[in-house]
């Protein structure tokens, strides 16, 4: 099967979906993207695909606001908001339009595969699929499956992810995202420090950038321990593990921001304020940096083995 000529259908309304579309286009796939924001989709793909790679035929991209009655693609990638009803209803919508050998791959953060496929007719072909924004410049790919998922779909996605999309991917078989949980643990600790007056948001971010930022692109957490001298981390855990944050709720800072309409860069404010033009500047810097750090990561393939 000549996978890279196969069209992929992407469903999503935000830049995460657009960056996945960019990734697929740059990997040679024809892409159809179903989105509510066609203007933003076109703008993103123009900026990050067609203006950067002149050998990609713009006709390979179709942007639409509706889902076709018959979906011809066998690989569907969806990015939705973190909402169970939204995910469930999308799966329902897709299932009535796709062929029997098609797979539905959608983003999963806090929700589990079991939850989102509770009402699915064919849960054996629904997988979790997570990328890191911007998807076309990063190597991250997390496939989430459960024992219900048919092995051939997992294998198909693994194969194409590794061979064509060049991701150093991994598969989680327990039906939930481990990336989401590890990140949640980090944020929970950070929120604890900030909400209890130990450190400011700025201090936390500086610590991240100037400590972890100098080794994480080279080595994940456990490889780094082995580089630094593993057992000393165990010694620290003896006392530190008894002291780490353990709050069960999201606290007051985050909900407070949302209540004030501060939902992040796209809205002019989040944890930080954003003046006119700053969001666009950040997007540009993020894409620029992502390309550079990827080059640096690829310089050290020794670390790709696990």
């Amino acid at each position: 099967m000549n996978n890279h000529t196969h069209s992929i259908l992407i469903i999503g309304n935000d830049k995460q979906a657009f960056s996945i579309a960019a990734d697929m286009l740059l990997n040679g796939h024809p892409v159809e993207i179903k989105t509510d924001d066609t203007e933003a989709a076109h703008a993103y793909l123009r900026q990050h695909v067609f203006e950067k790679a002149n050998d990609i035929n713009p006709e390979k991209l179709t942007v639409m606001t509706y889902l076709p009655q018959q979906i011809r693609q066998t690989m569907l990638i969806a990015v939705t908001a973190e909402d169970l009803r939204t995910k469930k209803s999308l799966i329902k919508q897709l299932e009535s339009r796709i062929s029997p050998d098609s797979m539905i791959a959608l983003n999963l953060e806090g929700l589990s595969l079991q939850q989102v496929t509770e009402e699915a007719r064919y849960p054996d072909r629904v997988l979790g699929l997570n990328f890191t924004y911007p998807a076309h410049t990063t190597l991250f790919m997390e496939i989430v499956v459960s024992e219900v998922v048919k092995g051939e779909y997992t294998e198909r996605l693994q194969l194409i992810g590794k061979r064509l999309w060049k991701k150093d991917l991994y598969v989680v078989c327990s039906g939930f995202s481990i990336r989401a949980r590890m990140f949640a643990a980090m944020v929970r600790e950070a929120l604890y420090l900030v909400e209890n007056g130990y450190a400011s948001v700025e201090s936390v971010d500086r610590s991240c950038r100037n400590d972890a930022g100098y080794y994480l692109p080279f080595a994940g957490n456990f490889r780094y321990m082995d580089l630094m001298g593993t057992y000393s981390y165990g010694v620290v855990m003896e006392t530190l593990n008894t002291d780490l944050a353990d709050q069960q709720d999201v606290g007051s800072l985050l909900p407070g921001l949302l209540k004030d309409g501060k939902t992040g860069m796209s809205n002019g404010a989040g944890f930080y304020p954003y003046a006119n033009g700053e969001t666009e500047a950040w997007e540009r810097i993020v894409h620029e940096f992502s390309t550079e750090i990827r080059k640096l990561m690829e310089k050290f393939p020794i670390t790709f083995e696990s």
Partner: protein
Amino acid sequence: MREYHTEKITIGVVGLGLMGSSIVVSLLASGHQVLALGPLPGENETAAGHISDLLRHAERSGFLPRGIERSLSLLQLVRRYEDLRDCKVVLECVVEDKAIKETVYRKIAAVVSEQAVIASNTSAIPISELQQLVPRPERFLGVHWAEPAYATRFLEITCGRQTAPETADYMTELGERWGKEPTLLRKDIRGFITNRLMYAVYREALTLIEAGHTTIGDADKAFKYDVGSWITLMGIFRRMDLMGLKDYAESFRVLFPDLSNTHEVPAVMQRLVELRGRGIHNQTGLYTYSDQDLKVWEEAFAQFNADIYRLAARYTEEELNTKNERSLTGL
């Protein structure tokens, strides 16, 4: 009144091991007069050679604006604590031994002014504990560096229970003049900011691994390729702003109650503590290593370090502000 001009501030550094020497070079690079004291026999002599090497490295890497000659002229290696009397700040960088540190603090405090700041680079002993050994404890705090001190932006300032806020503010201000991006831990807590964040991740990952949901290698892929792809550029709060807070808040609402809260040391780590496993250094770690691996990893890491310092230097807060202005004005 506090002095902020580095040229007018004499700083003492006590303890001239690898870290102390590196810190000396960072201070020289920032224009300070530095009085460096190695308490151990022969320490000054060894340090002199090492500091020279580091100055050369700093100059080659573009971290020594005044050049080697001028920077060296700002340095004095001293043998007696009395020679530190004019220091406005003294940084203690001796071994992680409370008794030894206590002696050092006593000797420093006996000669410097009452307003002089005394700081420790300790990463093992709680600041509040050390603070109790220092005369006039309100002027004592932790100032923690990363290696090499003259090339990294990292600086964590930790307040002990008795540290005066004004002392912390002063050191934060100085830290910025040293070209650092200082972080401040305002109240006494176990661990540093970065430690606590990463150990929270370790705890969760190891819990998932122990339960068979993932492996050491996959957990590393998860963090390296996700967080590792942006954390040099932006911290977690900035990243969440970029991606949008609504979905994060919702996912945290679901996930926080599910995260590991264990107080135990995971079995795999406990075993390595018992074996004194130092990873690549004695081929006993979380991964397996062959005889050749140590050299390969060390060389790769050294090369990566050189590269990441260069890359990170182009994306410092200062650089980002410049880039932002440029795009706002359309230049």
